[in-house]
């Protein structure tokens, strides 16, 4: 085998996974426990409190967990602490705008991602309050 063939083979092997991959989009899924009980608002959730203030003025917002999800055409499942299972699928990426199918029983939505914007989905009851799922752009590395 000649040297340049080895070189080309190495290049092919190294680049093949990247080229073979379909579109993928990173999403951050944050699980929030929200309650009307007197408590503390996580400072990082101030924008969420503001977004929900006219619907339900929660007095306690606690970040339970954060998951980095890599969405593709295959569904990604996420077990929620209240026993539900959420499911996310990348529908398409067109003009650098991703379309995502989010299923948080009983809700199901298709939405388009936006830079530095969040989607808040009510995910049912959790203990003495509500469980919310926040889908957002992951922080820059």
């Amino acid at each position, binding site marked *: 085998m000649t040297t340049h063939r080895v070189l080309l083979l190495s290049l092919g092997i190294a680049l093949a996974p990247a080229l073979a991959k379909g579109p993928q*989009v990173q999403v951050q899924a944050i699980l929030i426990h929200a309650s009307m009980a007197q408590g503390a608002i996580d400072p990082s959730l101030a*924008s969420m409190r503001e*977004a*929900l203030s006219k619907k339900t003025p929660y007095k306690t917002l606690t970040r339970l967990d954060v998951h980095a999800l890599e969405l593709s055409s295959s569904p990604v499942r996420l077990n929620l602490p209240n026993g539900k299972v959420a499911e996310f699928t990348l529908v398409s990426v067109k003009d650098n705008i991703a379309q995502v199918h989010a299923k948080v029983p009983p809700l199901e*939505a298709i939405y388009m991602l936006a830079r530095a914007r*969040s989607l808040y989905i*009510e995910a049912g009851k959790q203990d003495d309050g509500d469980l919310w799922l926040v889908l957002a752009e992951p922080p820059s590395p």
Partner: protein
Amino acid sequence: MTSHDDSRAKFAELLSAYVDGEVSVHEARWVEQYTAQHPDSRRALERFEAVRARIGEHLRTEDPSMDWPAFTRGVLARLSSEPRSLIDRLKIAGSKLLADRRTLLATAFAGAAAALAIAFWVRPTEPRGYGAARLEIQTVSADGPSRSQPIVVSTERGDAVIWMDQDPQPESQTPAGTKGEGNRQPPREKRL
């Protein structure tokens, strides 16, 4: 093809084996008779023997410090009929590869490193799929009791909120979609 051509072809075929002493007595006699009758073939045979002798001499003198008896024993040991363990075979293959293909391996590693550098260089510098200015809900639906309806609202900031309205009030709430799979509708949004 003539008989003369056949003889020349046979001579060419037997030449190397004859010099190495690997022909039968009958074939050796044929070569000797043929070269006696054909001076040009005789010269070819002599040249071949000279070259072979020079190669042998070169191999012997290339490294005078080489312990040829030990080398021979090593070769014979490798030719042993006893099966070797997988680790031994891997060691032998690895040392042989390093000895014979050092340049090739270095080139392959350099190529892989270059490929990784290119892959790193061409990777997107910003997250893909976040090109929109506002988060847009396209469809929403919900399974559940007929009294439950999904509500979608968008905030001034450009975020969106979806929740289930357990006790809808048609005058004040805006149902976003309809129930069940296959019956999705664009949500009617309202602002919080």
